[in-house]
């Protein structure tokens, strides 16, 4: 069993989820409440990774973070490092790849909150930020939890994008899906089956646990 790859995938998935929560919540708020006419354009861009094949995304990301692109050159000047074939580069790709999986459920969760409760809070003199923290987010927790689980699970299972930008370095960019692929390619079916089974078990456990937790929220909520 390739524990190094499993641990790398878990680290990547957790970091991606945290970054996506930080970026995705404000973005989802804007999508849920903005009345801008061109909002549909932002929504379309956010949802692109759902439609684009991972190969397309990976191909673009590799070019965009490479040393010949402005972004890659700027990163090299600031940090002295390079994004391709690094954990940070993979993180950039994963965040883009899983963006809709966070933003869409969270935006739906925000939009489902009764607007009158938000307005009541504003009328009572509570600031917009505090209203978000104390009214909106607690009421939208199921949507936020779904977004977090989906982006975690999606990153755990990410394959095409990593294949395109990772460079398959052990402990840095060789994620569990790549490791399984390599084992199959090397006709090492027993090892592939072992790691696959572990991944299946882990994915199921994470999903089952989170849905179980959500269920408790749902059943406790009406009692308050």
């Amino acid at each position, binding site marked *: 069993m390739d524990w190094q790859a499993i641990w790398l995938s878990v680290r990547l998935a957790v970091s991606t989820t945290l970054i996506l929560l930080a970026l995705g919540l404000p973005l989802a708020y804007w999508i849920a409440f903005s009345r801008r006419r061109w909002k549909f354009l932002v929504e379309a861009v956010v949802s692109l990774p759902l439609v684009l094949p991972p190969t397309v995304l990976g191909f673009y990301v*590799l*070019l965009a973070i*490479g*040393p*010949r692109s402005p972004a890659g050159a700027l990163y090299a000047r600031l940090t002295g490092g*390079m994004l*391709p*074939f690094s954990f940070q580069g993979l993180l950039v790709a994963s965040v883009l790849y899983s963006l809709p999986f966070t933003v869409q459920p969270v935006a739906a969760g925000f939009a489902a909150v009764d607007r009158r409760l938000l307005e009541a809070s504003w009328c009572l003199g509570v600031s917009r930020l505090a209203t978000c923290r104390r009214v909106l987010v607690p009421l939208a927790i199921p949507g936020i939890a779904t977004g977090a689980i989906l982006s975690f699970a999606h990153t755990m299972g990410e394959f095409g994008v990593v*294949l395109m*930008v990772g*460079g*398959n*370095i052990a402990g840095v960019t060789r994620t569990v899906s790549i490791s399984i692929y*390599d084992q*199959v*390619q*090397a*006709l090492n079916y027993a090892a592939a089956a072992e790691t696959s089974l572990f991944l299946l078990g882990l994915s199921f456990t994470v999903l089952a646990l989170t849905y179980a937790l959500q269920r408790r929220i749902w059943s406790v909520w009406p009692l308050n």
Partner: protein
Amino acid sequence: MRGLEQLALIALLCTGCAPHVQPRKLTIAAAADLNFALEEISRSFRQQHPAIDLQTNYGSSGNFYSQIQNHAPFDVFLSADVEYPRKLAGEGLGLADSLFVYGLGRIVVWVPAQSALDPATALQAAAVRHVAIANPQHAPYGRAAEAAMRSLGVYDRVEGKLVLGENVAQTLQFVESGAADVGIVALSLAIAPPVRDRGRYWQVPLEAYPKMEQGGIILKESAAARAFRSWLLDPGGRAVLQRYGFYLPGN
């Protein structure tokens, strides 16, 4: 309705219910590095044999090997490593008497045209951050690259800089995009028409890595498959293969 009946008839014919009828369709599974050479060869083959519907599929030899083990419907298999056809012959999945070798895999050190590096010394250069090779775990060219770096005495210096392409074409793409500085790829790729002008290469001496015999085998007996095999191995076919970097030391 008529169209449907015709479709059903075609489907029936294609599923091979008539093994004694000479097949018109000939499906080739070929290693991805043969792409350019085989396009040219099959063009002339089609002109000569208009009755044969030749189809070529490109992919990784290892992938094809496991697909053929699961009875993928290919007639001829052209592998980047003759070991796979040899195994298929041993397993009774290919015709042992049709086994043939068409070339020797050759590797080159490749840098993009605009790079300041000299390909002959690029592996030792201190400025190099990433060296791309194909994955030695399953790509024959990756194994050759690793062996060559060991025998050239640069492996220890390069080991920490290695990035692995899924195959030799992706390895080239890593270097071409600038993400990696230098790569070890197949000669056939470096001299292929779309790549030729985009980079410079240094041919690694053949003695530096184990011989990589490239070979093929006929999987299903048919006159069309035999015709294709001899077309490939005739002086005409050999000349095209040689132009694309596939040749034996004798040639």
